[in-house]
């Protein structure tokens, strides 16, 4: 088992309370940053750490912070994106539920670095019980003087509030999140201007994922260079992975970047293999919007190298034979699962969650869902498969926000790697309603 920086104390009894958290080394980073560091120094440490955004895109957090516009007399905001709604992803839920103070600590330090006197945690509408947990923890932090006016006598004022969303996936997109927080319909905004220039209430704003903000705590405690020593290349530090599907031991794991995918799926410290002695069929390594990988590309890349749990290795081979680390929603399918059904399920999700603002996404996601519904229910034609490929090519890149891409990628990848199975659904209509296709063969060129 590797080092655990975020979930080190997740099993300590009472860790959700301030006193126990403090006894286990909590709020050290706030003391260190506010008493002995300047905001620039905190930013520098985060830049040195090489921390990349944990929400899915993997954009370097330090660089994002450095883009923040700092005009005189205009407030700045830090928003924490806790609208975790990607199917297969539940790492932030675990973190906030177990160790709410870790997020609050990260928010204070990050806000200090950004010069934000007000920050918000925008939490998913379905996580109402976590809202209570966070509010209780925030009240404790106010009580002990870690929030409010003049924190620890440093002269830094900071207020933190939690705002619940209404349960829309689209509000995880940063500009839709800002709109929603302002009390409007959660439609993504046109970019530019980017939130770093014009965000919440027209002021410069940084939006970060829960895990990114929590990771600032160990970075400040141990130093950015120390953090960067963990991991491989440009994928530094530890990452929370929420593993689900047909695994012996699904759950949230904190991994050091750079362990092999094989170790993660089959290792004793992690998921311990596929449940019920079945074989691996496919894997979606980063939440529902990333391309699906067939079994022969999960543990090895197309070039025959070991696939590692890093941003680079999972993306090795581009979309032709790779995928993405995404948000860390690791979904595993065994040989009994139907890829067509799963693809339809994902498409249905995106059709349901599209905001309906721009035409390719509004019409395209609904269209794909209907065609996939037909294919899955034994009413498809061979030309539908090409039609799907054509539709998702026309959605991708032509929409306001990345939801269009997120809807197009899984369908494109499923057709790319599992075309046999789609065709079987068309050619063996009755058979396909009774049983599943099973494992697909490995293409000769890759084996």
């Amino acid at each position, binding site marked *: 088992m590797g080092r655990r920086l975020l979930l080190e104390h997740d099993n300590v009894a009472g860790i959700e309370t301030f006193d126990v958290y403090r006894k286990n080394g909590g709020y050290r980073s706030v003391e260190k940053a506010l008493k002995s560091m300047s905001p620039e120094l905190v930013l520098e440490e985060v830049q040195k750490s090489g921390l990349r955004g944990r929400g899915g895109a993997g954009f370097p957090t330090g660089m994002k912070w450095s883009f923040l516009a700092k005009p005189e007399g205009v407030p700045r905001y830090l928003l924490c994106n806790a609208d975790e709604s990607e199917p297969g992803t539940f790492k932030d839920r675990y973190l906030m539920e177990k160790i709410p103070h870790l997020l609050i600590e990260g928010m204070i330090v990050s806000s200090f670095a950004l010069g934000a006197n007000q920050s918000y945690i925008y939490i998913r509408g379905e996580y109402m019980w976590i809202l209570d947990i966070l509010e209780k923890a925030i009240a404790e932090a106010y009580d002990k003087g870690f929030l409010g006016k003049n924190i620890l006598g440093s002269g830094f004022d900071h207020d933190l509030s939690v705002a619940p969303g209404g349960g*829309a996936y*689209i509000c995880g997109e940063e500009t839709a999140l800002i709109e929603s927080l302002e009390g409007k*319909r959660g439609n993504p905004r*046109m970019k530019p201007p980017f939130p770093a220039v014009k965000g919440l209430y027209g002021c410069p704003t940084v939006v970060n994922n829960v895990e990114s903000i929590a990771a600032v705590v160990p970075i400040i405690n141990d130093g950015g260079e120390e953090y960067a020593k963990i991991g491989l290349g440009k994928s530094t530090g530890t990452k929370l992975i929420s593993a689900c599907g047909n695994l012996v031991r699904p759950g949230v794991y904190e991994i050091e970047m750079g362990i092999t995918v094989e170790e993660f799926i089959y290792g004793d410290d992690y998921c311990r293999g596929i449940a019920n002695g079945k074989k691996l069929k496919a894997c979606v390594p980063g939440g529902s919007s990333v391309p699906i990988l067939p079994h022969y590309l999960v543990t090895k890349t197309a070039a025959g190298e070991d696939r590692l749990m890093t941003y680079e290795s999972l993306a090795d081979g581009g979309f032709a034979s790779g995928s993405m680390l995404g948000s860390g929603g690791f979904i595993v399918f065994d040989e009994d699962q139907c890829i067509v059904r799963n693809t339809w399920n994902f498409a249905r999700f995106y*059709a*349901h*969650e*599209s*905001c*309906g*603002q*721009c*035409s*390719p996404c*509004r*019409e*395209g*996601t*609904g*269209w794909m869902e*209907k*065609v996939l519904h037909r294919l899955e229910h034994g009413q498809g034609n061979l030309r539908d498969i090409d*039609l799907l490929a054509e539709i998702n090519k*026309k959605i991708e*890149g*032509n*929409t*306001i926000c990345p939801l269009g891409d997120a809807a197009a990628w899984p369908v494109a990848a499923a057709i790319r790697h599992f075309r046999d199975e789609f065709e079987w659904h068309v050619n063996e209509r009755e058979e396909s309603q009774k049983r599943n296709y099973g494992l697909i063969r490995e293409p000769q060129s890759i084996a």
Partner: protein
Amino acid sequence: MIKVTIDDVEVEVAEGTTILNAARMIGGDVVPPAMCYYSKLPDTGGKCRTCLVEVAAGSTKDPRPMPKLVVSCSTPVQDGMVVKNKTSERVHENRGAVVEFLLINHPLDCPVCDQVGECHLQDLGFEHGAEKTRYEEERRTFDPIDIGNKIKLHMNRCILCYRCVAVANQLTDKRVHGVLHRGEHAEISTYIESAVENDFSGNMIDVCPVGALTDKTFRFKSRVWFLKPMEAECECTKCSGKVVVWQFGNEIYRVTARKDRYGEVEDQDGKAGWICNDCRFDKKDLSDWNIIGPRTIDRHSVISQGNYESPRTSIKKVK
């Protein structure tokens, strides 16, 4: 002033101008079509994606091409930018796809639609659409709702450009309609069925690019091409009073604002010539108006394509 090249034509524009407006300065077929952008209504645009263009060179400073197609209505030009619209195969292909997306759920009830002849979607379909649909599913329909005795909302035809929402936000003192639901099921509606009544709510009809919002006082009365558009004016305390009346003989069938070739209201006395509901719906008598003279209508639309003088060419096009 900065220089930008669109389809090999160079033009000098002020900083901050969008690609679309720069193209409109050149004019002609260099101009990308726009279904949701409306120059007289700030904050519109970016939604329909029909105005996508290719940026072959970002600027003189950074001449790299932009990887994705960009929406010309809300992308500002840079000095030395090279834009491809009609000369780009990629643009042509993707615009065709957007038109297909807009049409899959559109009822195509043009034969009974009042917008025919003035419909931007019809123009767009004519220029960029495919002959056949690939959509085999049932088309989406909405329950009709009543938004008052002057304006007819036909949601099945709507392409969700949000222009009417912008009109209600920017011209009227209180918006009572908006977009409900999301994705495919998003619809223009009033939350609790109520009438959209306001002195300037009628302008929603003028900005609607399709037949989703039509004039109830003109519904099913006549085809627009049978009418004689005349510029007219009157003394009005609420608006400029400068309008176009559409006559049949000596009868006024309908009143609209004066629109330019892009279907947008023209400026009157230095500001956008929106007209009030009194002028639009209630003044249907010749004595209400001082008729100035015939109005020239830009004949770029579908209407002028169905040219009866050469039936053979028009048949060829339909095939």
